[in-house]
């Protein structure tokens, strides 16, 4: 019983990371590194909660979160794609900006009760399946949405024509350009889509797993999502595995704290980040062995007449 409830909690906690990770996969597949995930998640979380607080409708909140994340990533797109700014610097600036702005704007909302949120929504029939039912099908609407998104994105990337363009533009923008596709347009689209998903990831925290708003409530999940992209080898299915693993560590840590173990809570809080480092080391070795590399043009600006 305990195992099942920990696993169910793992999935709930993993949803936010999963959205953000899927978003970053799209962005990096297009060849743009966006280190602003944490900032975009925070703005999504705040926008989502504030809108829900004002309207009482969490769906409107989710839409607002998408918009907030998308807007912030649009800044990144403008700076890096059109103005040739350094992607690392721009991304870090985005995280700092998102953190500062949400702390400032969100002050009046700290500690307020959520008027509505995405509650657990057992799916009739499926929820009754032993073991799997309670783990997978007694979750909230956003989690179900993420279930759908994983195969959808996988199919998009590997089985569709636009997905082919996406894979190509991150590998060799010069080729994509010479073949008559617009590198800039492709990159704008996926950077903004990626930002929207990160924003939705934020909302998955403030509207579902921990309804409410506190300053810096994402607590580094944006960074974990970025690290997970490597573990996932830029593949949505593997991203799901990774996100739930992290959700599991997080859930376990809460359980242990709740059960009043003698282990220091500081140590327990550290676990997800420690786990990130270990996973990164293992994943990197794996990618090297299997020759799965990052998109070749990741992080490199593209200008047609510039010699590379």
């Amino acid at each position, binding site marked *: 019983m305990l195992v099942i409830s920990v696993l169910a909690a793992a999935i709930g906690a993993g949803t936010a990371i999963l959205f953000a990770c899927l978003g970053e996969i799209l962005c990096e597949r297009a060849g743009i590194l966006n280190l602003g995930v944490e900032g975009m998640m925070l703005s999504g979380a705040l926008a989502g909660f504030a809108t829900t607080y004002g309207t009482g409708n969490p769906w409107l909140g989710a839409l607002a979160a998408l918009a907030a994340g998308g807007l912030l990533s649009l800044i990144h797109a403008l700076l890096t794609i059109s103005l040739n700014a350094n992607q690392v610097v721009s991304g870090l600036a985005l995280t700092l900006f998102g953190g500062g702005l949400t702390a400032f704007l969100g002050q009046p909302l700290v500690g307020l009760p959520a008027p509505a949120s995405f509650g657990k929504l057992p799916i009739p029939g499926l929820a009754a399946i032993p073991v799997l039912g309670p783990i997978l099908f007694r979750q909230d609407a956003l989690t179900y949405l993420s279930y759908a998104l994983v195969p959808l994105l996988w199919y998009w990337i590997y089985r569709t024509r636009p997905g*082919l363009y996406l894979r*190509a533009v991150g*590998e*060799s923008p010069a080729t994509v350009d010479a073949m008559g596709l*617009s590198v800039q347009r492709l990159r704008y689209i996926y950077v903004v889509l990626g930002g929207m998903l990160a924003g939705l990831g934020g909302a998955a925290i403030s509207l579902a797993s921990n309804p409410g708003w506190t300053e810096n409530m994402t607590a580094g999940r944006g960074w974990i999502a970025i690290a997970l992209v490597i573990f996932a080898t830029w593949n949505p299915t593997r991203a799901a595995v990774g996100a739930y693993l992290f959700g599991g560590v997080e859930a376990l840590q809460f359980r242990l704290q709740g059960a009043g173990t003698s282990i220091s809570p500081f140590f327990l809080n550290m676990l997800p980040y420690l786990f990130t480092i270990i996973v990164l080391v293992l994943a990197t070795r794996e990618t090297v062995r299997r020759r799965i590399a990052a998109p070749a043009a990741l992080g490199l600006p593209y200008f047609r007449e510039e010699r590379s």
Partner: protein
Amino acid sequence: MNAVELTSVTKRFGSVVANDNVTFAAQVGEVHALLGENGAGKSTLMSVLAGLYRPDAGTIAVNGAVQHFRSPRDAIAQGIGMVYQHFMLVDSLTVAENAMLGQAGHGVRLHTAPVERELAELGQRYGLAVDPRARIWQLSVGEQQRVEILRLLYRGAKVLVFDEPTAVLTPQEAAGLIGTLRDMAADGLCIIFISHKLDEVLAVADRITVLRHGRTVTTVERRATNRHELARLMVGRELMGVVADQPQAVAGDAGVVNLEVRGLSAEGDKGVRALQGVELQVRSGEILGIAGVAGNGQRELAEVITGLRRATSGEVRIGGQDTTRCSPREIVAAGVAHIPEDRNGTGLIPSLDLQDNLILKHYRQQPLARGLFLNGAAIGNFADRLLSKYNVAAPSRAAKARLLSGGNQQKLLLARELSGQPRLIVAVHPTRGVDVGATEAIHHLLLAQRSRGAAVLLISEDLDELLALSDRIAVLYEGKVMDTVPARGADVGYLGLLMAGGAQSGAADHGRPMDTGGIINQDVAH
């Protein structure tokens, strides 16, 4: 009628004027050659036509109508396609997927099967066979070139620009391609053929436009011109001609063995056997040429010898020392110079300046290094000395390597590699894509190294080059040495046969070549 017409096109890159008021017209149904030395502005002009570069001045007309290309998309829509000099391929995708990029298609789903079929058919028809499902990184440079050409055919372009397409082909393949281009022109397509090789241009073109220093010199009819005139138009001076038959090292047995390869096997990138039991010896003062069609283990051989690839079995000895498991740095220390196939990726660091590229192998030594620090003045001197000694045409030693033309990049690479008095030089396609003047210079440099007593392993697809420079020639086919023959008096027909694997049973199984009239089989050891 003119299929395309460029009028008064000017294109600048910063302070460099790549095209200066150039006028060019090519007709439907002709092969029109664009001839010029490295840096003459050929690629730039055609990139303007292909919509990749926007001209600073001038107009483009297609079938008589003026067009303003804002991107390659507009040019493709007008039926203009280009096989670029630097491949425009996505390494991680398959051949078919590369062909599908940007192609207007039906629906969202990716249907590779019909494209694969069509590519396979096209490949068969034009003698450009390549597996449509292979990923680009698994293909040799020659095969990648075929993909570029196939993609163009697949797109059904009406005006096809080929930017030095034969640079990566064997003589036979090049001849085949020239036939294909003639057929395509006869079918009513307009073929523009960029080259700096006179014979090739004379063989393929109906008309020839010569570019020099970014300006149009003239356009001539093939029938109304000759090799001599073209050379003068292109270079602006009389040419010295190809390296004369050099005195071959008579007593090959006299020098010490600088490179010995025994029973060497290695895997290629695909994980298949790329080298199988290769046996070679190169002595001091000798050039051993390696002939073979692209993708028969040449690259792997060079990589294993220089420590960039692991051998699965066998042994490499350099100057008597077993270097099979040595790191590239240890192999460099053993006195090996490497002129790799991929000069921009493995040979040079394009984004570093010339002097940094020049000290890459020596930066740890006195006087370039002073403890932990680099000695700027000494490095400056060192770089200037090499640049002038090797005649590298460059604005300054602080210029970025990527801004040099292909020929000068190659000279830069040779300057670095040859400056340390190497005992073994592994040169892979050292003159590929390099104009006549620079080719001449590179040949002289390699011969000078031989006279100095270096052993040279010269891997090339250019049989003329191998015959002119080598003392002996070994033919590599499917990772095996088919035979090794003295270069002097070697029978080109026999070499071609070996390159195609034709004499395999004769040479490999019985240790004796087919009767080819007077060829002595030296290395029958295997």
